[in-house]
């Protein structure tokens, strides 16, 4: 019994999950109907559904970010890429004679996604071929990208009236929000592709020891380009969802600071910024923790001006719990548990 407990405590997702549960319980206490999920007009409604739906963009970006971070990199440009993709899609829809037609939206979305692939290749090129440090390489697009988005929107907030586009952000399919379905698909594809092929192992290997990987014949350059491209692709999907949700492309504010939330989600999920082993499941939990946190701020009634401070406090606690020092303290605790279990067995 104690041994099982010790193993659960030792699991690297233990603290993030505890955090998530604690946040949910706080919400439940503050608002007893928090867990209620009702069906209205054949759509699922409820606070939990809101968390999933609002957390979807962050989760999608965090999935791409996880792989980038696993290679010892980081991608700061995801917010800017999200803004560009939203701007591209909206400007195409606005420029079309039939903004409401499905074909227009399909073209807009496809073009936006293809442009994000180009942006991702650019990041990957700077990092893998030119050899610029990832934080600097992606900082370039982080700053320049918003400018590009501004050029596309010509400094305006582009408001579109296109039901099919709006559907991407706030639609439902079999009662489930489209955003949640898209996030699930991105997550599932990423998990499947990296773990069913050798991609995941190569990503980890390059992140842990790039030179040993090179000498073993791993094509690190190509791998990095693929990973940064995938991350930009994720950012574009998130940007489309965010833009569709408000039916407006705002070059300045779409996906603002979302890179920080995504990085946080990855770190809370237990993937080290030093690269190497990654956990997509951890990233999922991390993204949920962050979104639940935002929701908690509203349900508990924390003044909006204190939101950032509250968020910082929670993140600090999670990071402290995950630190090696804490892990050591807890391994001592586990040993004592094990000894007690041993004694108990001997006594009986």
């Amino acid at each position, binding site marked *: 019994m104690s041994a099982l407990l010790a193993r659960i405590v030792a699991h690297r997702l233990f603290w993030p999950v505890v955090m998530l549960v604690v946040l949910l319980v706080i919400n439940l206490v503050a608002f007893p109907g928090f867990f209620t999920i009702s069906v209205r007009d054949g759509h699922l409604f409820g606070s939990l559904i809101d968390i999933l739906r609002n957390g979807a963009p962050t989760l999608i970006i965090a999935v791409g970010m996880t792989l980038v971070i696993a290679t010892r990199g980081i991608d700061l440009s995801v917010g800017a890429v999200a803004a560009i993709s939203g701007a591209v899609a909206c400007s195409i829809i606005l420029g079309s004679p039939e903004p409401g037609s499905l074909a227009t939206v399909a073209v807009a979305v496809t073009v936006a996604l293809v442009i994000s692939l180009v942006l991702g290749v650019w990041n990957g090129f700077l990092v893998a071929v030119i050899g610029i440090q990832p934080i600097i390489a992606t900082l370039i697009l982080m700053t320049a990208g918003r400018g590009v988005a501004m050029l596309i929107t010509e400094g305006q907030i582009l408001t579109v009236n296109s039901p099919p586009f709006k559907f991407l952000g706030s639609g439902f399919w079999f009662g489930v929000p489209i955003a949640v379905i898209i996030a699930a698909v991105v997550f599932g594809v990423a998990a499947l592709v990296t773990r*069913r*092929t*050798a*991609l995941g*192992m*190569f990503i*980890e*290997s390059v992140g*842990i*020891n790039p*030179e*040993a*990987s*090179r*000498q*073993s*014949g*791993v*094509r690190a350059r190509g*791998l990095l380009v693929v990973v940064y491209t995938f991350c930009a692709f994720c950012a574009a999907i998130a940007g489309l969802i965010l833009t569709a949700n408000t039916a407006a492309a705002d070059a300045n504010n779409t996906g603002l600071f979302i890179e920080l939330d995504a990085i946080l989600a990855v770190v809370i999920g237990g993937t080290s910024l030093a690269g*190497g*082993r990654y956990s997509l499941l951890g990233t999922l939990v991390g993204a949920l923790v962050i979104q639940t946190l935002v929701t908690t701020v509203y349900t508990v009634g924390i003044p909006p001006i204190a939101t950032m401070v509250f968020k910082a406090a929670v993140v600090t606690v999670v990071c402290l719990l995950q630190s090696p020092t804490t892990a050591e303290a807890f391994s001592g605790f586990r040993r004592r548990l094990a000894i007690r279990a041993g004694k108990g067995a001997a006594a009986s």
Partner: protein
Amino acid sequence: MNQAPPAPVVEMRDISISFPGVKALDGVDFRMFPGEVHSLMGENGAGKSTLIKALTGVYGIDAGTITLAGDRVSFSGPAQAQAAGISTVYQEVNLLPNLSVAENIMLGREPRRLGSIGWRAMRRRAAELLAGLNLDIDPGSLLGDHSLAVQQLVAIARAIDVQAKVLILDEPTSSLDADEVAELFRVIRSLKEQGVAILFVSHFLDQVYEICDRLTVLRNGKLVGEYLVDELLRIDLVQKMIGKELTTLDDLEQRARSVVVDDSDAAVFVNAAGLGRRGAINPADLPIAAGEVVGLAGLLGSGRTEFARLLGGIDRADAGELTIGGRPTKLRTPRQAIAHRIAFSSENRRDEGIVGDLTVRDNIVLALQADRGWFRPIPKKRQDELAQSYIQALNIRPGNPDALVRNLSGGNQQKVLLARWLAIAPRLLILDEPTRGIDIGAKAEIQKLVFNLAENGMSVLFISAELEEVLRLSHRIVVLRDRHVVADLENDGLTVDSLLALIADGSVESDEPVRDVAAAASVTAASVTGHTEDPTADHPAPTTADHTEGGRR
């Protein structure tokens, strides 16, 4: 100063330093005299750098005494040692390339005027120091604009500014060309005349013999002896550095093996013709036949690793041609080498070998999987079979394929690496120091493995600092010295003595590697037996001349 003139300025007595599990220095004595250049000699792990760090206060000593200019001292850090007059210039110039030469020289002790830096005084003092070394450098120029050699000299100028009594130069010439070395030596000589005691550490024997007056040899943390350079033959020096146990045990077995290979008349698998890389290895030839074990012998820095890296595609050759299986080929990446079934196992296990946070299984399948590409994953079942079979065949402990490699001992990590390379079924396996730092049992297992692989037709290029090991395993031995191949010999009747002679004295007249050095070798080897006091003097003199007619071909 009223003592007899040559009083040592530094005297270290009976120094011992232990690290967990290792006795790094064991009762070592060491002296340095003013106005003398002293060299500290020894192979990897001999304790050279530990001794230097003990002298410069980086490490505390467990036992023994250090006397500086007659006073007992005990430094608790490099700053104290420097204040007492012991200055060090490290191999990598650790100065600031973005500051001026003057700033670098005076960094941390800038002349002050009213609380701010006296720039004029600083530049003047720097100029004086540079003039003292006969260096024509503008003190106001950026350090980074100068060549590595000049930076090295600036580092020396910085070191002597603190009224250095003792100047330690750790591998100062490893990245310098011949002219730059001459310039450095001129500076060293002028410092010597000023009465500075200089410790010059280098792997280049020629340089040691050119500039040094006295040398101390260490081996495995113990003092071998202190000698005047003029009185110690090179061959004796190398013997003292490497140590010597003549192995006669495997001679019979070895002869039998040589015969087998000669009969098979195997085709040349890899042929390097004039293969070289600037600053790493001078152009050299090396044919390797299928099923042949070729040993590379030479001191550290002789170019043995650098040459092997060219064959493994780790570094690109900038001269010469490589033929693999009869076809001219250029290796640009390790990946290409692997595609040709050439595996290179690095001597730097931690940084270039294992992927520590991956499991034993992942580490074993890594190269094979990389060769197949990411889209064709090796099925999990096949991965397990591979891992299990190598864990058993190589006796990897713990035998758990899910264990993280970084938690394994050095010997077992080495075996995992071997398994990774064997998994790609290589036709040429390059093993750079596969037995370094691992225990004797694992060593024997790896040696046995190399032997069996070659019998099954795999070519092996084997590099080891232990000559006994090279002799025991190799059909042919290629000797390198100072980045040249100096000999290429059948391992038939070769002994540690004759190899030592080649490593120490195999001189290079031209860029052509000397293939027929047998005569020279036997002459030197004969003189060795006359000069050394060791008990093998009655051992039959090596008769290399009979067996080494210009090596293979």
